[in-house]
């Protein structure tokens, strides 16, 4: 009986080890599968063309597993596409780029650890990656200490500028602030702020509240729900009671699905209430359902429907590579042109040395799919055009307003009279 028990324990232990190994394997195989093409290609090229010599290792760190993989896998795909394109065009400085993909696993310490590994062991020239502010904050000290370069592709809450990070997503004055101004002018003064309970929504709402005070809006209510919250009936009751003109939505992740499905069930449509979201892009619409979101607004710098020749090429290439049913969106575009910005800077500097690349990047311009972008030398953010779009029945956005020209990034809101109030607190 006793030995029997022992063997059972062994069996269970073996099963669990197998289970974890399996999970780890599947997590690992995905990136290598997508890199293998480039790797072998790069190798054969290097063999036949040995005079060019060598490869430049570049790092990618995104969540390929865990809760954030929902968003980050497609950004990784876009970055891989840019690297492939650059390699096909002959690489940078006569060398091919060799991508090394790491899985941040939606876990911030893992992001820091993988970044450290990429910088110290793989000696990569640059790292593309991250999505949540928490992952960026975890990576920040690591790239600063190791004097690395990090390209961060997602809109965020601002109030940050690291000498070792390039921010290719929007800061607040390129998304939230103009969106609030547009809403005040076109949709009404009474604002209901709804967000997930963590850094980004709280900071964003702090900014919005100051802006409302300065520009004549009124704050009706400010509500936060825990990340992953799925029951919005009570919040919707509050919205019904307060009757705001606008719900400014900074919910993140799956909560959006629950909120919009339940809003529609409660009989509140886009004609009864204007909502503007800053975290819902084409990729998210696919998972929520276009019929649920039709008529609601979002603010970004890029949509799949953005009408530029560069974008036509980009969307076609992305769909050819990854499938007809895939969509592009703002962080995907920012991830993609970030790779190009870095490559251009390296070409200009004639070296992959971090300091030389940073110096060369100052004022660098590039025609991205979403329009012209330019690196601001002061804070290493990017000039971008602001666009407000409305969700259509096919899950795509129709642009209803844009800023006309690329907006200078202002992460600390120094150009606004009320900006001092935000940075002070």
């Amino acid at each position, binding site marked *: 009986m006793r030995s029997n028990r022992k063997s*059972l*324990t062994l*069996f*269970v232990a073996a*099963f*669990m080890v197998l*289970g*974890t190994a*399996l*999970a780890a394997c*599947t*997590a690992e195989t995905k990136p290598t599968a997508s890199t293998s093409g480039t790797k072998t290609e790069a190798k054969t090229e290097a063999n036949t063309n040995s005079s060019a010599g060598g490869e430049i290792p570049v790092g990618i760190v995104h969540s*390929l*597993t*865990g*809760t954030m*993989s*929902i*968003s980050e*896998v*497609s950004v990784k795909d876009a970055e891989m596409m840019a690297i492939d394109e650059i390699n096909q065009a002959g690489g940078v400085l006569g060398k091919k780029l060799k991508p090394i993909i790491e899985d941040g696993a939606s876990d911030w310490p893992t992001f820091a650890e993988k970044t450290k590994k990429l910088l110290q062991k793989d000696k990569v020239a640059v790292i593309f990656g991250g999505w949540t502010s928490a992952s960026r904050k975890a990576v920040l000290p690591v790239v600063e200490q190791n004097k690395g370069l990090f390209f961060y592709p997602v809109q965020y809450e601002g109030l940050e500028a690291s000498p070792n990070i390039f921010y290719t997503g929007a800061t607040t004055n390129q998304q939230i602030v103009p969106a609030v101004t547009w809403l005040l002018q076109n949709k009404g003064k009474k604002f209901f702020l709804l967000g997930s*309970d963590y850094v980004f929504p709280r900071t964003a709402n702090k900014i919005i509240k100051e802006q409302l005070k300065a520009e004549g809006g009124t704050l009706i209510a400010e*509500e*936060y*729900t*825990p990340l*992953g*919250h*799925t*029951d919005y*009936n*009570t*919040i919707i*009751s*509050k919205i*019904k*009671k307060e009757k705001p003109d606008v719900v400014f939505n900074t919910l993140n992740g*799956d909560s959006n*699905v*629950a909120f919009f*499905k*339940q809003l529609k*069930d*409660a*009989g509140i449509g886009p004609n009864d209430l204007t909502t503007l979201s800053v975290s819902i892009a084409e*990729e*998210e619409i*696919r*998972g*929520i*359902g276009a*019929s*649920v979101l039709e008529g609601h607004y979002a603010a970004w710098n890029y949509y799949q429907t953005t009408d530029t020749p560069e974008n036509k090429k980009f969307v076609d290439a992305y769909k050819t590579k990854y499938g007809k049913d895939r969509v592009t969106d703002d962080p995907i575009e920012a991830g993609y042109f970030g790779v190009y910005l870095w490559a251009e800077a390296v070409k200009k500097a004639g070296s992959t040395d971090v300091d030389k690349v940073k110096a060369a990047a100052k004022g660098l311009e590039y025609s991205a799919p979403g329009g012209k972008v330019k690196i601001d030398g002061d804070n290493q953010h990017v000039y971008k055009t602001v666009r407000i779009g409305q969700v259509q029945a096919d899950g795509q956005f129709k642009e209803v307003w844009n800023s006309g020209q690329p907006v200078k990034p202002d992460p600390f809101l120094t150009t606004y009279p009320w900006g001092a109030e935000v940075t002070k607190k």
Partner: protein
Amino acid sequence: MGILLLQLFNGVSLGSILLLVALGLAITFGLMNVINMAHGEFIMIGAYMAYTIQQLFHNMLPPAAFGWYFPASLAVAFAAAFAVGLLLEVTLIRFLYGRPLDSLLATWGVSLVLQQLARQTFGAPNVAVKAPAWLEGGLQLGADLTLPYKRLFIIALVIVCIAIIYAFLYRSAGGRRMRAVMQNRGMAACLGISTRRVDAVSFAFGSGLAGIAGCALTLLGPIGPTIGTYYIVDAFMVVVLGGIGKLVGTVAGALGIGVLGTALEYGTSATIGKVIVFTLIIAFLQWKPSGLVTVRSRTLD
């Protein structure tokens, strides 16, 4: 007045969702004492079944038949989760009866494996399930009072599920055997009941109920590989608060948390409301460690 009634409805509605999620666990954890961390993944299986059946109906059948996909997917979700539950019981759980910590770890590993399998099969992003037309809209009872059909449907579904479980447990020979095994395994075995088979079927039945819950949840929220993790804590909370091993307790626990939770959320905010609910539950369990409704059985001695 409208708002008050609406909030009461919201409370009952939230309670019904908690109950739906916890029913399966009331059997696998409440009756069988297996700490099943993979319960959330059975919910996920149900949700993905709804998505799969929807795609099948959309691609293979005429549009007129589309409305029928949902009842069909309820049945398929139950069957699929039942099958996976049975497989899990036979290959793993049966070696872990009476070893709660081991079963906690092992089923947690299983939940990770199942999540990754779903990610490989259906992709990392969420998928969308379109509700059938007959569940769109709501019952208009006043200016402020709209009762969404989906919520009413879920409440009805929970009532039907409870009725079936009750009839099975207390009115059928199979249910009697099941209760006998849970309460006194040795005696039941002496009387000629195949405890192995009863264990397997009970666990699979609990898993199947989770599948139904997952299918219903597609009407309200996201469908992704991690959907189970949103509900697993709530499900355990309901079963523990209700009193392990008693169906009535699970019902009372779910409705109590639902109504109290929404009232507190309306009075304060979602985050604070949740904190207060948890605090109250902890305090209550200090005062009455065995939950709302207690049952005397061998498993609890």
